[in-house]
């Protein structure tokens, strides 16, 4: 049954199977944590539920420092406490960089589109981008910090160098994949080059471009985290790196799960938006 290609698990089996590893993972974690705490009640490597709760309360409801706490916070609502919390401040700092990086992917899509549509444009850029794509972004991190300093620009440039070549080349390939008949058809319907490029080709490849960006979200976050861990005063990765020095696993673990949740939500939003914006698109 397990290796039958035509197996059709019923709803309950499918649900059980899909949650099994989550539940097992959580159970294994608390089993190990419990055993370690029996040997050493102060163990910080695998925090207990109580330690995690304390860590989460500190991260989700308390500001980074006592000085950062506004007046009367003790009696404020949970919502207000969350909005002044360390986690929220770090999330906003990372989100700002993330949004900038995503915005910088728009020119990458436009460049890939033009490279695919206009042969002279393509000839000019393709070889260079292919080479650029092979550069390991993290290897140029020191150069970026020297060239741009340790401010925001260096971190955003790291993401740009890490992700944009992939998006440019993906868009280029998707553009090239549009059947020639569609382009010819466009001309026979009175369209000029830019109309064919934007009204026919871009519209057809857009859902796949969005999928490509979605699949690269993790890479964006990877470079964002690298930048923040090495040179930053705020942000989710900065906090994780800082807490590592103090063995603050009870905060690091909720932070890691929070980042995963945020990324999952961004991915889900993009998937839903893609479906709404392109109702004609059927994913392979």
């Amino acid at each position, binding site marked *: 049954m397990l290796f039958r290609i035509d197996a059709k698990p019923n709803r309950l089996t499918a649900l059980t199977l899909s949650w099994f590893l989550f539940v097992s993972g959580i159970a294994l974690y608390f089993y190990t944590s419990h055993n370690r705490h029996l040997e050493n009640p102060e163990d910080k490597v695998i925090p207990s539920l109580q330690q995690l709760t304390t860590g989460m309360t500190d991260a989700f409801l308390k500001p980074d420092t006592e000085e950062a706490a506004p007046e009367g916070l003790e009696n404020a609502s949970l919502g207000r406490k969350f909005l002044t919390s360390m986690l929220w401040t770090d999330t906003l700092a990372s989100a700002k960089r993330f949004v900038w990086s995503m915005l910088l992917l728009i020119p990458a899509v436009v460049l890939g589109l033009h490279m695919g549509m206009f042969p002279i444009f393509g000839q000019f850029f393709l070889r260079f981008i292919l080479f650029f794509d092979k550069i390991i972004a993290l290897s140029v991190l020191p150069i970026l910090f020297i060239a741009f300093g340790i401010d925001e620009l260096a971190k955003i440039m790291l993401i740009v160098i890490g992700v944009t070549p992939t998006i440019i080349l993906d868009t280029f390939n998707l553009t090239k994949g549009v059947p020639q008949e569609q382009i*010819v*058809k466009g*001309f*026979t*319907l*009175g369209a*000029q080059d830019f109309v064919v490029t934007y009204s026919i080709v871009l519209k057809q490849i857009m859902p796949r471009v969005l999928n490509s960006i979605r699949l690269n979200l993790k890479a964006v976050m990877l470079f964002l985290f690298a930048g923040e861990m090495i040179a930053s005063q705020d942000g989710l990765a900065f906090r994780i790196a800082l807490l590592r020095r103090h063995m603050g696993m009870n905060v690091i673990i909720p932070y890691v799960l929070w980042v995963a949740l945020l990324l999952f939500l961004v991915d889900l939003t993009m998937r839903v938006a893609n479906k709404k914006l392109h109702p*004609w698109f059927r994913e392979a």
Partner: protein
Amino acid sequence: MKDIIRLENIGVTYSNKKVLEHLDLTIREGEFVAVCGQTGCGKSTMLRLILGAEKPTTGRVLIDGRELPRPDRHRGYVPQKYSLFPDKTVLDNITFGPETEEFGLIGRLKPGFRRRRKEFQAQAYEYLKHMGLQASDAHKYPDELSGGMQQRVAIAQALIMKPQILLMDEAFSALDPGTRSEMQKLVRTLWKETGTTFLFVTHNIPEAIFLGSRVVILGKDSPESSSKVQVDMELPEEAHSREEVERLTRVIGNATAGAKLELTYAE
């Protein structure tokens, strides 16, 4: 009738392989030319040359006396596959041409666009009706339509531009026999109604005979040689009955196999 398409001494070579050589053909305005031939004989290449989507290695293609460098709104095109824009509804596919021609890429922001769009949509509904489609199909996407319906929309999309020439490349090859037969009748009716010059490429001899007011057959004398015009004949109206199509298919089949062409209608 004036000459609308002239192919003069056309040669096409792909990576040292000659597909067409010394090809001369003149098509007069209002003719329905059905070009037939086996796979690889260069009939689609010939269509793409006329369309302006390809350039000949030698010779020249004149459309209404001029060499045109690329496809334009005067030459409508219905290919076998990818004939519609998948991201646009049936209505948007049909109105795409007139809207684009009048408003371009950013002209849609101009005042008056909405009013004109409504006029184009009204025209599109007329074409849909004429093609035997329902108004309720207007908001469907191409992949929600059958192959025959897609080709009907593709023809409407091309005809709304009122092209001088309509070029159809194996447009019905992927359709089932029943739908194919319906489409053939529809296309012949449209040709008579519009007076547009039609050029229809097919590998199916009966289809070419049924459709064309003139049938051109491309073929090779040997597998190594390039294609040339083997048969070029005009067909009168009475040649399009079922019996005559069958008889002419046999005659043309023999002629392309090397026998003498005995065609009573041409005399």
